[in-house]
């Protein structure tokens, strides 16, 4: 059975780095791995979705509706948008940050109320203010690594392996902040 992880967020939030760390981490465990990313237009502040699948043999790089074991969401509305992809009883880790999309800013739509309640009712939910933790680690941009830390805690892959992967994936100059961010997430 493959493990299916979806990473969702808003273009510019650093979802690609999260998927890179995850991909490299499971790769070392001897699995077949596929990661599907979105580049180009939708990266400009739009919804971004990354699929990560690993197991004995992975064919489609895409995760279908009702098939994700875990959804790692960088923003509330994007978590809700991804909810149909979650397996029954699957896990959602969500950053509680809200970012208004343009239709909300222009007043054409309103930001849905009670998203966390909906997520709670339909998933095994962990909701965290990852931005706060990231700023405690020293940089609000480290939200992605905080969330990876939370995910890491629930995985079978040992702590050391995650740290080693972060060391080899993140640029030297941001390493300290990212390791701190990872630990803050991991110790939740």
């Amino acid at each position, binding site marked *: 059975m493959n493990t299916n992880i979806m990473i969702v967020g*808003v*273009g*510019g939030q650093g979802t690609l780095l999260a998927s890179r760390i995850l*991909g*490299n981490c499971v*790769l070392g465990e001897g699995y*077949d*791995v*596929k*990661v*599907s*990313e*979105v*580049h*180009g*237009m*939708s*990266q*400009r*502040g*739009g*919804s971004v979705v990354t699929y990560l699948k690993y197991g004995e043999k*992975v*064919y*489609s*790089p*895409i995760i*279908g*509706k*009702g*098939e994700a074991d875990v959804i790692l969401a960088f923003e509330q*509305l*994007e978590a*809700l*948008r991804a*909810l*149909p*992809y*979650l*397996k*029954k009883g699957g896990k959602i880790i969500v950053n509680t940050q809200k*970012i*208004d*999309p*343009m*239709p*909300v*800013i*222009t*007043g*054409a*739509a*309103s*930001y*849905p109320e009670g998203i966390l309640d909906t997520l709670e009712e*339909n998933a095994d939910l962990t909701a965290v203010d990852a*931005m706060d933790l990231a700023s405690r680690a020293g940089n*609000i941009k480290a939200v992605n690594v905080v969330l990876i830390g939370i995910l890491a805690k629930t995985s079978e892959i040992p702590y050391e392996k995650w740290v080693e992967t972060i060391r080899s994936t993140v640029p030297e100059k941001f390493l300290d902040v990212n390791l701190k961010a990872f630990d803050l997430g991991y110790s939740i």
Partner: protein
Amino acid sequence: MKKLMLGNAAIAQGAYEAGVRLVSSYPGTPSTEITENIVKYDEIFVEWAPNEKVAAEVAIGASIAGGRAMSCCKHVGLNVMADPVFTVSYIGSNGGLVFCVADDPGMHSSQNEQDSRHYAKAAKILMLEPSDSSECKEFTKIAYELSEKYDTPAFIRLSTRVSHSQSLVEIGTRANDEIKDYKKDIPKHVMMPAMAVKRHVLVEERTQKLIEYAENCPLNTIEDNGSKIGVITAGISYMYAKEALGDSVNYLKLGMVYPLPEKLIKDFAAKCDKVFVIEELDPFIEEHCNNIGVKVCGKKNFTLLGEYTPEMIAKVVLNKDGAERYELQSDIPARPPVLCPGCPHRATFYVLKKLGLTVSGDIGCYTLGAAAPLQSVDTTICMGASVSAAHGMAKIRGEEFNKKLVSVIGDSTFMHSGITGLVDIVYNKGANTVIILDNSITGMTGHQDNPTTGKTIRGEATKQTNLISLCKAVGVERVVVCDPFDVKAFEAVVKEETAADEPSVIIAQRPCALLKSVKYEGKCKIDQDKCKKCKKCMSIGCPAISVHDGTVSIDPSQCNGCGLCISICPFDAIVKE
């Protein structure tokens, strides 16, 4: 050693291992990272050309000169490179010649959903289609062998999910990259009628030979699972089919999608009660099956639109429903892409909207000027069309209309194909105003250098096209440079230039907010005591500015401090922190 690699990076690795000597491309999602990854290999000459036609011709020249060469583009880029491509089909190759073209089913980042396989058939050029990163690398190497063996260029067709998915690739070493001899060979290399007539005969013979190859080639594989249902498929659709149907059906996976085999398909189908063709976009394989008298289920059961999914395939072939899931209420707000906080294009569109101008648009980040709330752009067709289409509009609707009409075009797009439209305007007595949105980079496709940036793809300093001299040289006498963030001055310039009775160019100059060199001091903040809640600042569509319970606020995690909101606030209620 196995590495997790993007399909595009694997193509680059394949090119490296195949001993490729030159790669010339123009960026375009989802093909861009092939060429960007070539930069890793010092042995290969790599460049961004000003457009796809030039890129293809550079690669053709390299091939004729004896080196293995490559040119990469997105599906619509193939339209631009089509002219040399159709004729190099007759010339063939000396050093192996490969064109990689990436389609975008679902239009994640494109203006149409065309299917490149038609080009392979129309230009009579073989086309391979990998389905994951490992095949990307292997097929690239095979493409070079076929190109040289059959004296033909070769296409590799990709799609978004192959180009932008990472999977495992076995890394190999570089083959012999010695260049072949160059011999003057007029009958082969000079395509004028007398020569081309003879070459065409060879092209048709070549296609027959390639069909024979297709019947037995290792790229076209059968997986017999003892089922009575058969699936004929290629590329990413094969992966979707395997995911959905597993070992419950037989597969004919076509690694070469042009030319297609006849006997192989007939023999495969003969063993099945029912055969499905699973292919995204057009019924290319399906029509071939129809032509050779093999009955298949195809587009009637699936769709011509967008991407396929394993769920869709399981439903059609096995009548199996997807997994249980939560259903969304339909009213959750979409999150379309937007101009970034600090984007210089925002200021330009703010002014154009304010002046009520008709805006002949083009392709780039600035296409987003058509989105709410700015909604300034009137048309978008293809790269370069903003300039030429405005000329047509002005000729139909006359002088008064033209005084309320501008073209907007990015620096990269202007160099790609905007300049020819400008030549047309000058030559044919137009009086249009063209605004070049010079943000010092090719933004939309993720920051590639271009002839106006003064840097090569390897980041080396080079001569820089001077846009002012260029526009003057084609005969535009009114050329003005202005910073769109200087809103008042910019507005005055636009008014003056549109009023002129001759062609004019405004170079709206301000670097892309995402460039590392761009830093604005401090973030913007609303002074709530001064704010009259007029919401004028909301009219520029900055994603950092929002209203909650009637209070306007600026999200510091998004604001980059560009200050555009400060300069348009009528009450001086926005300040730097």
